[in-house]
């Protein structure tokens, strides 16, 4: 009798298995860069980079990227975790002033664009809820591909895929953020202009 109920529960669990949709994150680990997602251009809503030897990666709990345009600045806000525990919240913000999109479709202009990072650019980092001092030394932020995605002929989002790397003094300690990659769908749900 118990086996019968166990079987029934198993059927219910299997039946309720959720399908991933475009908003969910699909993390496919990169064999050559363990701990990081593969570089992709599908809008898998993932990002990752090495923070010295630890990984800074997206997770299922937080929206991985919000793009916020205010006054004279566009900010790429990456929300994720440091290491393999989702409780270790970490946020990394890139501030850009040369390009101010009005809506998310304008992000297509970033296709194949590289932005060199130096001490005139600003990056802020928040680890475990505390802001840390960042002095940028050098690096780059590259959008390899920006593409407008149509699903069943209906415009859905802009997918931004690219790479980033930089060296910085973080709390006066030299830190390398390396092998950074992102593949994220942007639409009204994570693009803000005000």
């Amino acid at each position, binding site marked *: 009798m118990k086996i019968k109920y166990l079987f029934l529960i198993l059927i219910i669990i299997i*039946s309720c298995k959720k399908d991933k949709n475009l908003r969910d994150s699909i993390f496919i680990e990169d064999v050559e860069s363990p701990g990081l997602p593969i570089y992709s251009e599908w809008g898998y809503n993932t990002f990752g980079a090495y923070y010295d030897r630890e990984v800074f990666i997206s997770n299922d709990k937080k929206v991985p990227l919000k793009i916020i345009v205010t006054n004279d600045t566009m900010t790429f806000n990456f929300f994720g975790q440091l290491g393999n525990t989702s409780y270790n919240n970490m946020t990394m913000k890139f501030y850009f002033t040369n390009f101010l999109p009005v809506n998310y479709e304008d992000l297509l202009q970033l296709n194949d664009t590289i932005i060199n990072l130096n001490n005139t650019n600003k990056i802020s980092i928040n680890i475990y809820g505390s802001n840390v001092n960042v002095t940028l030394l050098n690096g780059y932020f590259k959008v390899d591909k920006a593409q407008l995605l*149509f699903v069943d002929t209906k415009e859905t989002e802009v997918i931004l895929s690219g790479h980033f790397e930089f060296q910085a003094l973080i709390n006066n300690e030299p830190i390398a953020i390396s092998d950074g990659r992102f593949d994220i769908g942007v639409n009204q749900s994570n693009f803000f202009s005000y």
Partner: protein
Amino acid sequence: MNGKILFTVILCFLLIGKSYSQNQFDSVRYFGIEVGNTFLPFNIPDYSFIRADNSSNNNDNSAINLTGRYNEFQFSIKTETRSLKNKLGLLYGIRLTYITSSLGKQDIWSKNDKYFYLLVNQSNTSSEILRVNEINQNSYFIGIPLELRYFTSHNRFFRFYFKTSVDLSYKFFTKNDVIFYNDNMESYTTDVINKFAKPSPFHCNINFGAGIKLGKEGKFNINIEAFAVSFNIVKTNSSIVRTGIGGGMQVNLLIPLKF
């Protein structure tokens, strides 16, 4: 490897055929019909134009997370001649093979309303993807089965035998069907099908197995046989899944014809 096995099997058939020509035929030749089913395991390639649907690490199999189906059904008209005191049978004839395969997210627990994303068009700054429930492919082949069976016992009502066979066929018709999540996307059917390679026109199965014959010699016989090892040398008879080594089952009815 597969080519060597095919060469060896065909060589066996040629040598045995030669021995047949040198031996005196038994007076009974059998004629009959056969139905069969071959179960080949298959895998789904990681198609680059299908969006992954499964987070995975290095230990997982596939990120595209699709299910599939592959089946081969055969209908044959065959004749059999025996030699070596009725212990060795050579069978040949004509065979119609129907191969059906599918790709989708179907499961046995719920109705098939799940879909996957397939990339149909891509330009520098735009991509078009479609929601697809299922892709089906049905192919029909016509060919020649060549089979050898060796009976372990002399004439009895119930006889056990070992069997090896090779089946060479040519595709004469293929029908593809795409079930879209959004019915209005049907105009993209050809675009979706063209994303996959065309199925191979040749089909060649090699089988090793055993069976039992029920019926008196020279009378109506029923044969039930199972293939312990069955493999398709051409792994691309379906263009949507790739086949491996499996097994199969056949039932045939043989009627004696006196000459």
